[in-house]
């Protein structure tokens, strides 16, 4: 279930969390730029955001239902398929915190190094700069939304 504030802030809260996680992955790449056999990773942002959106939407109609072939199969919301509809109070809700784990991918190196390292310093630098600008843009969106909300709430 989403709170009213979650619905108001929309996709930006999930985007901010994912951008912070992507920053961490890119920082790892830059820290290991001289480590033999280190393989550079990045977050497939579109896939991660779509997954986070689905997870936080909960019982929203946009979520695709999992196919069940047996009464004991789990549905997407964590309830057992055969359980009565009124039994959903004990169901597990999908984690609202987005995770970039499933969208992590290894980079394909343009020019493989002899020591097995696949970090391209320039590529990582530009990705890091791009990600920090995106983070700031998301922060600006959130700030504007919160200010609008405060304006609406204040009586003056």
């Amino acid at each position: 279930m989403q709170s009213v504030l979650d619905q108001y802030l929309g996709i930006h809260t999930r985007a901010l969390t994912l951008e912070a996680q992507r920053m961490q992955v890119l920082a790892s790449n830059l820290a290991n730029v001289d480590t033999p056999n280190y393989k550079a990773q990045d977050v497939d942002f579109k896939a991660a955001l779509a997954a986070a959106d689905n997870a936080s939407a909960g019982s929203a109609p946009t979520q695709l239902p999992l196919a069940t072939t047996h009464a004991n199969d789990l549905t997407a919301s964590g309830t057992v398929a055969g359980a009565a509809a009124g039994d959903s109070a004990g169901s597990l809700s999908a984690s609202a915190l987005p995770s970039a784990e499933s969208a992590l991918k290894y980079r394909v190196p343009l020019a493989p190094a002899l020591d097995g390292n696949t970090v391209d310093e320039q590529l990582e630098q530009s990705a890091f700069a791009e990600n920090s600008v995106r983070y700031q843009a998301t922060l600006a969106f959130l700030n504007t939304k919160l200010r609008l909300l405060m304006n609406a709430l204040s009586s003056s």
Partner: protein
Amino acid sequence: MSSFKIFDIAGSGMSAQSVRLNTVASNLANADSVSGDPNSVYRAKHPVFQAVLGGTSAGADAASASVTVTGIAENPAAPASRYDPSNPLADAQGYVYAPNVNIVEEMADMISASRSYQNNVEVLNTARDLMLDTLKLGQSGS
């Protein structure tokens, strides 16, 4: 809180690169430290880097990797022998042994280490600025 791990990661990168700078300084300082014994002559030292994976925790922690120096390797190449009987360190045959330090290689290594260090400082600064901005989220002044 996973956001603070970025400081550990960039910090580990900085300390690893500074170990590398230290070994480069040591190699360059000892480039001309000749010895009369090929077994006791100075040998070029280089750090061995290894990634420390984030472990089994969920999310991007699993992908985040700091870096650590697992040891200092010495260059196994034979030291260069030089016939210099006037040198007080020369052995009975009149030879002195020079360290197997390649000065050009060390200079290139130094520049690479200093660039990588700067990269990590930049990551640290950016992450700190973004996190301070996040702390100010929703405040009227921002």
